[in-house]
């Protein structure tokens, strides 16, 4: 079972990286860019388990390891 996890900073948390990239895009002429936020994309191959098992694992993996819910939020997709 394969999955993708998306970890992003919570909306209320400043994203210095994203901000710096926004500024860079402006400098390059893409002045229409209003916001840039940078997160993580984690691609997992969970081996030979069912979708339900994968779902249960992913939830725990995200909350426990892949994201720090103090500042981040996560979403995942099973594919």
């Amino acid at each position: 079972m394969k999955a993708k996890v998306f970890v992003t900073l919570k909306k209320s948390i400043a994203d210095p990286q994203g901000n710096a990239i926004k500024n860079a895009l402006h400098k390059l002429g893409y002045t229409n860019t209003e916001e840039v936020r940078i997160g993580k994309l984690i691609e997992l191959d969970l081996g030979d388990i069912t979708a339900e098992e994968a779902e249960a694992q992913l939830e725990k993996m995200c909350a426990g390891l892949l994201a720090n819910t103090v500042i981040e939020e996560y979403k995942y997709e099973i594919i």
Partner: protein
Amino acid sequence: MKFGVIVFPGSNCDIDCFHAVKDILGQEVEYIWHDTKELEGYDCIILPGGFSYGDYLRCGAVARFSKIMDAVKVHAAKGKLVIGICNGFQILTEAGLLPGALVRNINLKFICDTVPLRVESQDTPFTRLYNKGEIIRIPIAHGEGNYVADEETLKNMKENGQIIFTYTNNPNGSMENIAGICNEKKNVLGMMPHPERACEEILGNTDGRRLFESILLSLEENRKHE
């Protein structure tokens, strides 16, 4: 001879390079702001270490778009000397002035240490005062110094003698133990280690001096020929 040290927002080894040229070589040196469009009258350009634009996204990714970089390309195309140290090396690869890329250290940690390097070639304006095969000790300080390139590129670099420094005890996972490379014409050098940190007795290491002295010697000879 006149040296220029480029200052990007976030550069932080700029003053170290400046001092190495001024105090050790006794040569003229100026800081050049990244927004400058032209590079006239400089014999050698140094892209210093640091965290240009915070190294956000990727090291050197944003700095390569600075105005000064077009001028650096022109300078290099004329066969004049350019050296990129640490972040400077990363910027040169991002800008396409040197092949390959630098990714995260294999242990995922920033590494600050003094490590042995083998001088692979003395056949460059930057290394002529070293001996081929000589082992020197130079400080490193980077989180992303792991050199990668495709096989073809590596092969070409080897054939052309573009691999200039290698680690004897690979600290970061670099392919072929690469610590420093140059372009085909050998007038652009990029290296992760910091020779400017190894120029003074008081700092306990002078192995980096000869790199700066080599540059000076090359420039002086060039001037004679002109």
